[in-house]
């Protein structure tokens, strides 16, 4: 599999970014939803710290991914109605916005609440505010939670569309986002 994208498939770099970020985001959601209900113990503090570190990693990966994306050609859409081209564009842009905005809102909340922020305990990450900011704290937490559920909504559509392409339309849309060794193109246009 080539590292760079081609006209017909996503390259290794784009795929790695896509699946790595997908896994980390889903882990983040699970950690986030569980950790808020933990009792006030050192374990809770450690799990929070882990959530923040993974979240900041997602932010960095998302920025790198976008930068890479801008240097790449993009595989052509299979023939499909115009509204579906548009829907795909819009939902992908929305997903990009969310994977940036979600960790950013978390970072903002963390700053406004005046919590420490050390990436995996080794790199100090600066605060985005001048210490405590109660108003911003309330709003950034709301944003963090709301953005998360918007992401879940968008992701449901995204996954449904991927499965629909694969199982109903039987085109290459899912395959071209997967490592291809030994896998056959259904339309003969992959690679």
């Amino acid at each position, binding site marked *: 599999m080539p590292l760079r994208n081609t006209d017909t498939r996503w390259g290794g770099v784009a795929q790695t970014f896509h699946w790595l970020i997908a896994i980390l985001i889903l882990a983040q959601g699970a950690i986030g939803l569980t950790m808020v209900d933990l009792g*006030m113990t050192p374990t809770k503090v*450690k799990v929070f710290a882990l959530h923040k570190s993974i979240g900041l990693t997602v932010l960095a990966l998302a920025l790198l991914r976008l930068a890479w994306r801008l240097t790449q050609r993009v595989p052509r859409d299979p023939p499909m109605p115009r509204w579906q081209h548009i829907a795909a564009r819009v939902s992908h842009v929305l997903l990009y916005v969310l994977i940036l905005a979600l960790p950013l809102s978390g970072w903002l909340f963390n700053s406004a*609440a005046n919590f420490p922020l*050390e990436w995996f*305990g080794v790199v*100090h990450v600066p605060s985005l505010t001048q210490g405590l900011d109660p108003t911003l704290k309330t709003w950034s937490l709301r944003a963090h939670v709301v953005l998360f559920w918007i992401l879940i909504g968008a992701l449901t559509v995204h996954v449904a569309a991927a499965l629909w392409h694969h199982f109903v339309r039987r085109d290459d849309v899912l395959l071209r986002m997967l490592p291809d060794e030994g896998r056959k193109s259904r339309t003969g246009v992959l690679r």
Partner: protein
Amino acid sequence: MKRMAVAALMLALPFAAFAQQWKVDFAHSALTFTGTYQGERFEGRFKRFDAKIDYDPAQLASAKFDVTIDIASVDTANAERDQALPGKDFFDIAQFPRAHFVTTRFRKAANGEVVASGTLSLRGVAQPVTLAVKFSQAGNGATLDVDTTLKRLDFGIGSGDWADTSMIGNDVAVHGHLTLTR
């Protein structure tokens, strides 16, 4: 007997006056501390405390600080932390609402700095504590700065699960800045 005590008091009063009683201007005074949490320094303060300050740099023998701290007034600019601190695992204010510090002795160190020894009672533990004292007088007013470093575990603050000093540092630097008037 009682009369004698009164007489002794009246005799002693003029001497006691030498020690100079100061009034503390609490609006311009602060009792702060710096701890570490998850590898980062954080600042806190006690918003309410009372201090009786008798101090004359020339009369160290009769100097005395007597400070009472309302622990519930702790503020570290983080709502979650400020909610946890009064609890049983930390200051346990239900049992120990106040801390008390009183000096026993003042002396001048070799380098000329004044050091006050005293006893701090905090969370039911009384421990000897020494303060570095800096005093500067200007006209009718003065400022007093005192510093010390405490070990939180000596006082059982954050024991049990919270004893891990890689999460919450053991050393806590305490600073008092008092604006004094006559």
